[in-house]
């Protein structure tokens, strides 16, 4: 009946006739090429260029001294007090932000995982801070911290935490708390939503089995919920740490790294070095140092994950 089917081809057999070489050695890479080309252009080339910049002197304000300088930038970095201050600030900023975001995000996820009215609406609303443009939230938080127009210094003073309603962002000892507060507000939804998804994937009968076995609510949490969340916790904490360590937007808008470099973190230092001082060589060296530190951190975390996560 089907006159168009060549009788030489058995049913189910491919009708395409291609040499083995084409099919197995070349064809797969043709399909992969869009992704490979894109990743190469967008990520690998800039990475190599950036790393090569860190071994050169490229300062727009000093155009005569352009050229390869070996490890000069790194040597300067080693003896640069501002770099070490920024590194310490980066640690403090990242650890405080990630810890608070994670802790509060987990709490929020546990709350959202309970049954209550309008749960879906609340879940959607919780995600809102994530959708606000960073500079808008930074500006808003900067105003909230401003004692002239913002309420926060007055509340803190009323609670006795501050002696008087001063400008927190202007006090070198306290300034970092401003961006951290904004960052926590901004980042809680990410943890809440991802952890909520992980929570919802835990089979309910495990809790029933544990209940029959005599486990209390706290034991259910530590012996079932946490082990189940562990893979998600490991991956989200790693991602967030990397993002937050690189996340200079809030700091740049709220304090600009000041006062007296008290809120300068490595990524904002890279930004000011590159685009204020226009010293691309030195900025690249700082960026490579930050990249190295984050790679070491990720490697350690993945190792820990391998050891503790069994699911």
């Amino acid at each position: 009946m089907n006159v168009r089917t060549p009788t030489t081809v058995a049913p189910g057999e491919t009708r395409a006739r291609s040499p083995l070489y084409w099919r197995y050695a070349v064809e797969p890479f043709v399909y992969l090429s869009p992704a490979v080309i894109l990743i190469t252009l967008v990520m690998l080339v800039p990475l190599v260029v950036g790393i090569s910049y860190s071994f050169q002197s490229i300062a727009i304000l000093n155009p005569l001294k352009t050229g390869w300088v070996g490890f000069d930038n790194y040597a300067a970095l080693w003896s640069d007090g501002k770099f070490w201050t920024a590194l310490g600030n980066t640690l403090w900023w990242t650890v405080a932000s990630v810890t608070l975001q994670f802790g509060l995000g987990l709490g929020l996820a546990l709350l959202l995982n309970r049954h209550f009215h309008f749960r879906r609406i609340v879940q959607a609303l919780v995600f809102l801070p994530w959708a606000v443009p960073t500079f808008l939230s930074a500006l808003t938080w900067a105003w909230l911290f401003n004692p002239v127009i913002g309420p926060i210094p007055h509340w803190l003073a009323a609670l006795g935490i501050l002696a008087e309603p001063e400008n927190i962002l202007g006090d070198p000892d306290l300034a970092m708390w401003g961006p951290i507060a904004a960052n926590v507000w901004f980042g809680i939804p990410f943890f809440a939503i991802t952890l909520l998804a992980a929570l919802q994937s835990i089979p309910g009968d495990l809790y029933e089995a544990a209940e029959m076995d005599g486990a209390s609510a706290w034991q259910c949490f530590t012996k079932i919920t946490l082990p189940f969340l562990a893979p998600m916790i490991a991956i989200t904490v790693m991602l967030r740490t990397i993002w937050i360590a690189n996340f200079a937007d809030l700091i740049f808008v709220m304090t600009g790294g000041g006062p007296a470099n008290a809120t300068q973190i490595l990524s904002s230092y890279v930004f000011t070095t590159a685009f204020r001082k226009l010293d691309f060589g030195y900025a690249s060296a700082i960026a490579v140092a930050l990249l190295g530190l984050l790679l070491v951190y990720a490697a350690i975390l993945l190792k820990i994950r391998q050891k503790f996560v069994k699911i």
Partner: protein
Amino acid sequence: MARMELRNVRKSYGSVEVLRDIDLDIDDGEFIVLVGPSGCGKSTLLRMIAGLEPISGGDFLIDGERMNDVRPRDRDIAMVFQSYALYPHMDVARNMGFSMEIRGAPAEERARRVAEAARTLGLDTLLQRLPKELSGGQRQRVAMGRAIIRDPRAFLFDEPLSNLDAALRVEMRLEIARLHQRLGTTMIYVTHDQVEALTLADRIVVLDGGDIQQVGSPLDLYERPANRFVARFIGSPTMNVVPATGAAGGVRLADGARIALPHLGDAGNAVELGIRPEHIDVVGAGAGDLEATAELVEHLGSDTNVYAQVDGLGPMMVRVHGNIAARAGDRLGLKIQARNAHVFAADGTALRRAERSA
């Protein structure tokens, strides 16, 4: 050791009643099987006994103590779940010893009890494995081990074998029977599989539509079903039920045949005659109560199943012990074993049950 009493126990979700006035006494050491079609409320009843589902009304007592508001962990009952509900991040040993870990039992006692239970269940070599590295049957054993180790006063099983293949199901069924013999603990077992119910139970509770239809020993239910539902639910292949009219000293079938049944009540009522496939004999055409044409004949070796089309009555299934020479298309006579016949009133209740086997 546990004696359980359910007094007018009810369960409703909002205005939907799923269980009505459940009255049941379970003796210490008894093996009770709750059986019924899906949606009949059997799992809900089990979960109410476990404490995982609140009881909407009535009283539930264990050893005379009211349990309605007692938390599951304080009821001292172990449960084996249909999904096994093994903790996937814990190895077999920790899964089995979890209840002792929770109670803070010393590690060496825990290890000893786990090893003991593992030996009886044949899990000794698997103690360090994670659940995902086990086969279905092994997971089932671990779930049972987790229950045994607690030495509870009652075991609950929620369709524990439904995820296993047929061969393994038979094996685990025997294992559960052996476990009950060895421990002598009260067990309540939920299943929709009547073979499991008939083979395991001391007493079977047949549930349908939120009501208990009948409680009795497996043979009781087979020989003396209280109504048409139980008659058709218990026994395989299913009982044949055909419309009939009460007549003096028997019933008259729609095709005009008269079946003599002693001790039957009023004549003239519309009733139904129930007869199990194994209680019909195949005789030569013209020699039986009914005339039929064989539509399909299955030779199973030990038995022969005949799907017959009875003249003026419709389809009927006949099961004959051994092999007979019948083939599809043959004309047959069917003889109904009157002493094994059931008669049901229009509302389904049994008017006459099979005579007690001696």
